[in-house]
């Protein structure tokens, strides 16, 4: 299986700071339209990873490959095969959408006539057909997002990198954007790397997910497989000294993350009954005040991966113990 993205011990240093600290992963499958979600808290290194894949940063150690091509040494070949939708406003305001897309198409290597034809075609595809002769600077935020998507897919890339594509979109536009993202992989066989802080977007579109924290990969999973494992997610609220709860949960094969003092998110293995939790908390002199099942699997995975546990002292202050 040839991965779409292969990263090997990648370290990237910007100035004095090491942003990516030796990450390795193999994502996607060449020739098969798949979507990969890139998640992580602010400052985790998501944008740096994307920018390294685009050849904007040189790795200090290790390598990054897209479709078997080195992102740094063969960046020009890589760039002919990818499309990039940046997070920020990145449009040439005084150009019409058609002219802007045509220019971007020609720079990507499309002949002038084909670039013009594709510009019209893509603008209709993303829903900007009627507004295609308007200057891009006059577009609303939602339209600008669609124009950015259009310029990323205009030349039919094999991998499309989308950085926060649903930023600033209303619910209807967000649904349209996600539908287009799904269509890109399912109908057009493109691979999608979706970087978003909205877990629902990633869960809706992606087949794989990578979670970064502090420049390292803390979790990588096949979302489809995760959904099929049928793990049970439990939200638990307890009163009492719950400092050891995380450790004792491991006795029954469960994993737990403390969100705030007294509030836990727990993943129970299929074979473990909920009764085991009652027994365990009773043994630890904890009183359960709330127990609920949760369905938001990706959120559980994310919170567990990034370890959203407050420092103990802070947690105790919040709980009124100190």
């Amino acid at each position, binding site marked *: 299986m040839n991965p779409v993205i292969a990263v090997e011990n990648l370290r990237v240093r910007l100035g004095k700071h090491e942003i990516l600290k030796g990450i390795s992963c193999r994502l996607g499958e060449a020739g098969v339209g798949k979507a990969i979600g890139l998640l992580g808290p602010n400052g985790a290194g998501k944008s740096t990873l994307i920018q390294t894949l*685009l050849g904007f940063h040189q790795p200090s150690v290790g390598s990054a490959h897209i479709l078997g091509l080195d992102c740094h040494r063969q960046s*020009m070949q890589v760039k002919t095969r990818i499309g990039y939708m940046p997070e920020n406003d990145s449009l040439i305001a005084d150009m019409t959408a058609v002219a802007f897309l045509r220019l971007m198409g020609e720079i990507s290597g499309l002949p002038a006539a084909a670039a013009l034809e*594709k510009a019209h075609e893509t603008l209709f595809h993303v829903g900007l057909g009627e507004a295609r002769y308007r200057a891009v600077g006059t577009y609303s935020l939602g339209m600008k997002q669609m124009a950015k998507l259009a310029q990323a897919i205009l030349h039919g890339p094999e991998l499309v990198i989308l950085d926060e594509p649903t930023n600033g979109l209303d619910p209807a536009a967000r649904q349209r954007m996600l539908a287009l993202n799904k269509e890109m992989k399912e109908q057009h066989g493109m691979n999608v790397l979706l970087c978003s802080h909205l877990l629902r977007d990633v869960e809706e579109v992606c087949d794989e997910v990578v979670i970064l924290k502090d420049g390292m990969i803390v979790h990588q999973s096949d979302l489809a497989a995760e959904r099929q494992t049928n793990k049970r997610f439990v939200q638990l609220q307890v009163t009492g000294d719950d400092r050891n709860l995380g450790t004792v949960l491991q006795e029954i094969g469960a994993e737990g993350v403390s969100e705030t003092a007294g509030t836990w998110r727990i993943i129970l293995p299929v074979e473990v009954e909920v009764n085991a939790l009652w027994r365990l908390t009773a043994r630890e002199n904890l009183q359960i005040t709330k127990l609920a099942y949760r369905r938001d699997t990706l959120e559980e995975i994310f919170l567990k991966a990034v370890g959203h546990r407050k420092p103990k002292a802070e947690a105790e202050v919040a709980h009124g113990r100190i």
Partner: protein
Amino acid sequence: MAVFRRGYQRYDGPLTGPGTRFMAIPRFAWSKILSQRFVVILLVLSLFWPLLCAGFIYVSNHADLLPNIGGMDASMAKLLEINGKFFAVFMNVQSTFAILLAAIAGPGLVAPDLANNALPLYFARPMSRWTYIGARMMVLFGILSLVTLVPGLFVFGMQASLASTSWLQANWWLGQGLVLGFVLYIAMVSLVALTCSAYVKWRVVAGALVLAFFFVLAGAAQMINQILRVEWGSLLNPGFAIYTVWCALLGVEPVEDAPGAWDCFAVILVMLGGLLAVLLRKLRPVEVVS
């Protein structure tokens, strides 16, 4: 089938060569620049001097007509001679239009891409920083050629066609000097305009900065010469430096007691290198704050 009915399909046709893709940038920029009224007015005005020179060349090569309107003595013949000095004066006048054009057209080249944060879009495509600069230089090269190289070669070609073959054999290097001199000048003016465009967002200010680069440095050079009682201060004056190089290329006597052509050429190269380094520093797909 109509485009809106066809739906999106991935492009799988042939791609253009890597060496020609960047030409899309100048093509789009030229159409935008040539739609500006000031640019068109300047282009028209810049044609007057070449037309006058063409008339002068015509008269110079038809001296037999002059006796009929009063005769021509030796001093008159000397005055009408088409030589290096003639082309040096021609280049000097046309270079003024080139600076004005660069001040009008240059600021709109890089600044909008920086202001709109569009550089990541260019650099996420098969385009390097060097190619981007080359494409932007090409925009100015094309526009400035219309007031420098094109009329220059027209005037030279006219003289070559009207004069005898022996004139061309003896003076072909004037054409070579004209081309080299203008190419060096266009490179300098273009880089100054692009650098100003990259650092100043407002077009009017960036345009003024392009003019200031030449006039302020000329003033500074004069001050250094006067205060320190030296001659090397003239090296800081880009106009003087380029004119000295032109004189050398066209075989014209240089200004006395002033830095030589090689010194001026070296200073221009250093200036070009410095401008390029400053420009490259600004043109990055992402800003890295260390």
